[in-house]
């Protein structure tokens, strides 16, 4: 056995490129999966840990007030373990040294609350007595604020100085979007904070809790709890929100789920191709050693020992590659991805983390590779030793005999192509493997570029065709709407709502307008829709989730509204965002609702500037800012996509180069013979060129539909609930995905051609003896 191990290592050295290809594919397959899993599972586990370590509520109810008695009655509902009150209000930060008049969402906790829904990262522990502010740590970081510093906050002209007691992070604000127009947190403009009940009077004038943190006990029935709350606060408006409806938590979960889907989709292609490469290469390597297998058998070596010997080839190389992937994937890829994501999501305990699936993948790759090697050598062992010694596998293939001589001067298919087709049919698995490699390469590049195109297109479409305003001004109920009438401005009411259709429900937004104006809706065919022609227009993703078609009726419960509305959907629009329902003011008022604008849209810079100074305008957003925010989010994916493109090219290169090498090693004698016959260099290499070109072109042709289908699937999976990405592949991306793959194939051709040119006739032919 000792000498067999020596033989194995020398064989590996002699066939270093083939083993290197196996190692690399095993490495890439495992590294991509574990790298992505390390990041998404790290975020998920960190988030779960974060939730477990803090007293984050299971659900929240928002109303215009909760008395102590009401809170007590709700806490006694079946399935509820506690119901704790908070007063939430918004303040402007007007401190010297803190630029931009940021907004502070201050939650004042009732004195008797047993749960602390946040984590103190710096400064004093939270208590019910100390007057002061426990401030959002991310905002403090952005503004260089520390415990002990003071902040001046203002509400309705009333200013208060608050001493920062500590810095906090809260799961409820894991991705805190201060405005419903933002899609990523802006720690420069929005902050949250906590204070105790005693402080409420000083800031707000009185403690008037308007939010209830609800904690479930085991076996809680959420539907029953919601009904119970409605009964307790009968006659008053309330809005119920669980983790699935909390925008901050939901967007984080969605992102984790997106990363999980990307990891599964991309790595499954890598792993599949890695396995195919491994199987093909091992079969070839062991087949090439058929005579040695016969020799060993003739010497009396037991079949099981020979089997174990060749199985070890597959085992050692794949184990090395897989373990390297397991070590480097999480250490490099996960860390890079986590670094990017943690700039958006505030998860204090997130670190790379793997599941048992990673270990299973390593076992699967190593096991299959070992099995491939064992099966290949088993074929050799089946024959009697003399038979193995007599025949080399390459010459034993039977070709189908054609009628006549098979080639004449007028033959439709030239000798070169006949030869290529027969070689391909001889090595059908290898041929299919080559095509799969090209298809995989095109598909992955196309999907990576297409996803970016889709996201960018959605962003451009949304902010240039759907929203044609330049400025959006968020207004409160005291705003004089008369100032915003005219050709250059439009009033818009936006309300968060819960939509129900049968058993399905989903959160979204109701947008009410007086005219189409600065918000244009388009149907699936890209035709402009006018709200005046419809009762209700629903965005496509919401309609799909709810199973709603034009003509169906949906139930709508707006945040803060008393009654549920029933609206007939008469049109479906392809707007990427917001996902929700668009209604004309007349329809809205016909439903018994008041039109209470929450925003003014305008294209007039002067008007925006003038209205911006109005105290009832809380924020002026430019469409460029909104577009930039979306771009920021998309940029967080760029590193991932670039890494995946790089991995796809590496995979394409390894697959094609490996196949080229396998063919070259098998055909060395044929190339030498052709040279001896007088074939010129180019004539010999053109055989390899043509074969590779055939595989590449076929792969590219199949790769186009595969890539587009994969892109469709991919875009569908990663689109968030509140932002639907249409499938889009720019011409340049289409060409680039084909060109990158083709360049990869051409470069492989070039390298293999160099090897063919280097075939030494005398030595190659002598090697046969």
């Amino acid at each position, binding site marked *: 056995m000792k000498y067999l191990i020596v033989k194995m290592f020398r064989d590996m050295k002699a066939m270093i490129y083939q083993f290197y290809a196996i190692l690399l594919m095993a490495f890439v397959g495992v590294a991509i999966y574990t790298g992505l899993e390390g990041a998404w599972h790290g975020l998920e586990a960190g988030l779960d840990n974060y939730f477990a370590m803090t007293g984050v509520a299971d659900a929240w109810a928002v109303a215009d007030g909760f008395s102590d008695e009401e809170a007590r009655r709700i806490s006694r509902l079946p399935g509820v373990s506690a119901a704790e009150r908070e007063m939430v209000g918004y303040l402007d930060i007007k401190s010297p040294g803190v630029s931009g008049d940021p907004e502070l969402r201050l939650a004042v906790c009732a004195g008797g609350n047993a749960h602390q829904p946040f984590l103190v990262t710096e400064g004093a522990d939270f208590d019910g007595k100390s007057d002061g502010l426990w401030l959002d740590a991310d905002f403090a970081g952005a503004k260089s604020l520390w415990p002990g510093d003071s902040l001046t906050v203002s509400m309705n002209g009333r200013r208060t100085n608050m001493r920062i007691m500590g810095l906090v992070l809260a799961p409820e604000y894991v991705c805190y979007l201060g405005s419903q127009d933002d899609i990523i947190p802006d720690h420069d403009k929005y902050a949250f904070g906590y204070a105790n009940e005693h402080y409420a009077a000083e800031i707000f004038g009185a403690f008037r809790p308007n939010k209830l943190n609800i904690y479930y006990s085991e076996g809680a029935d959420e539907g029953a709890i919601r009904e119970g709350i409605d009964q307790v606060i009968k006659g008053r408006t309330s809005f119920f929100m669980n983790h699935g409806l909390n925008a901050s938590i939901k967007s984080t979960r969605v992102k984790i789920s997106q990363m999980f889907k990307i990891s599964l989709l991309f790595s499954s292609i890598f792993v599949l191709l890695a396995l195919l490469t491994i199987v093909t290469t091992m079969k070839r390597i062991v087949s090439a050693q058929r005579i040695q297998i016969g020799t060993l058998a003739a010497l009396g070596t037991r079949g099981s020992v020979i089997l174990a010997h060749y199985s070890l080839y597959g085992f050692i190389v794949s184990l090395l590659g897989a373990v390297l992937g397991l070590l480097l994937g999480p250490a490099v890829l996960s860390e890079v991805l986590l670094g990017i994501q943690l700039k958006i999501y505030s998860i204090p305990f997130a670190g790379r983390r793997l599941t048992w699936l990673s270990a299973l993948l390593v076992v699967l790759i190593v096991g299959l590779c070992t099995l491939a090697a064992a099966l290949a050598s088993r074929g050799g062992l089946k024959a009697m030793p003399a038979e193995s010694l007599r025949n080399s596998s*390459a*010459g*034993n*293939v*039977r*070709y189908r*005999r*054609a*009628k*006549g*001589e*098979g*080639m004449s001067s007028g033959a439709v298919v030239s*000798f070169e192509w*006949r*030869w290529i087709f*027969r*070689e391909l049919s*001889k090595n059908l698995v290898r041929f299919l493997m080559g095509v799969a490699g090209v298809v995989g390469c095109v598909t992955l590049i196309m999907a990576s570029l297409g996803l970016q195109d889709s996201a960018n297109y959605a962003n451009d479409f949304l902010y240039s065709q759907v929203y044609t305003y330049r400025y959006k001004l968020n207004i409160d109920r005291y705003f004089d709407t008369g100032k915003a009438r005219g050709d250059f401005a439009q009033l818009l009411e936006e309300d968060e709502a819960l939509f129900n259709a049968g058993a399905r429900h989903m959160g979204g937004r109701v947008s009410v307008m007086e005219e189409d104006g600065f918000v244009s809706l388009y149907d699936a065919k890209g035709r402009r829709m006018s709200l005046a022609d419809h009762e209700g227009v629903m965005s496509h993703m919401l309609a799909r989730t709810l199973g709603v078609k034009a003509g169906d009726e949906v139930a709508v419960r707006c945040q803060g509204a008393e009654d549920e509305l029933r609206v007939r959907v008469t049109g479906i629009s392809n707007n990427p965002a917001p996902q929700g329902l668009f209604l004309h003011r007349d329809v809205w008022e016909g439903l018994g609702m008041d039109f209470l604008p929450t925003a003014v849209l305008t294209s007039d810079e002067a008007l925006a500037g003038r209205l911006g100074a109005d105290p009832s305008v809380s924020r002026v957003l430019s469409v460029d800012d909104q577009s930039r925010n979306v771009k920021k989010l998309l940029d967080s994916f760029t590193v991932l996509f670039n890494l995946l493109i790089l991995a796809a090219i590496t995979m394409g290169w390894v697959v094609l180069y490996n196949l080229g090498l396998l063919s070259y090693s098998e055909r060395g*004698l*044929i190339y*030498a*013979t*052709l*040279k*001896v*016959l*007088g*074939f*010129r*260099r180019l004539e010999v290499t053109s055989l390899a060129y043509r074969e590779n070109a055939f595989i590449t072109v076929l792969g590219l042709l199949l790769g186009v539909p595969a890539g587009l289908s994969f892109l469709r699937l991919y875009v569908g999976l990663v689109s968030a609930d509140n932002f639907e990405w249409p499938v889009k592949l720019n011409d340049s991306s289409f060409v680039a995905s084909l060109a990158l793959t083709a360049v990869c194939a051409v470069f492989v051709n070039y390298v293999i051609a160099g090897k063919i040119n280097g075939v*030494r*006739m*005398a030595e190659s*032919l*002598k090697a*046969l*003896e």
Partner: protein
Amino acid sequence: MISFENVTKRYQMGKEAVKALDGVSFSIERGSFTVVLGPSGSGKSTALNLLGGMDAPSSGVIDVDGKKINALGPRALTDYRRRDVGFIFQFYNLIPSLNVFENVAIAAKLGGNAVSPLEMLAEVGLSERRAHFPIELSGGEMQRVAIARALCKNPKLLLCDEPTGALDSKTGTRVLALLKRMSKEQGKTVVVVTHNTLIARMANRVIRLKDGTVDEVADNSRDLDVDEVDW
């Protein structure tokens, strides 16, 4: 007329230089049947490879009908192999994925003065087997395909490296008879490298090599036909 003048071929084996041929000189008449004899390692295959333009000598001059083979560049050497030389190998070196006809036709495509592959197959008695693949043929048949492939380019020189080495004696004699006939009837210069001394009796000239040098060059007073040799 072929001549080797003081031809040396050195190979570098690790740090050691090995001389496969050491100052070899001999000549071969045009249209003759010449046998190069010698034990393993004597340099006979190296000499054949140099003569066929498959390898370059380290020093010395190889002249084939006035053409200095040793001085030819890669392209000219390819042209030389393409037009002037036909090779026959011990293990036939047929292309497994081409059938009999195609294996011959592939060579015919190259020579400007090529003979029809079908004619050539008829010549070697394999017309009926033209659609078969190499794996379906016996050793003798494969060697006959290889001869047809070498001859269909209509080369001046037919170089045969142990052409009967992998064949039984009966089949081997048939192959030799064919080569001899080609030499006599078509005026081809046939050079056969072998360690089988019996074949030497069929030759016009016998060149014996030993340890990379010429041991003896002898002309037979009468070259025997295959049937006359006591195999």
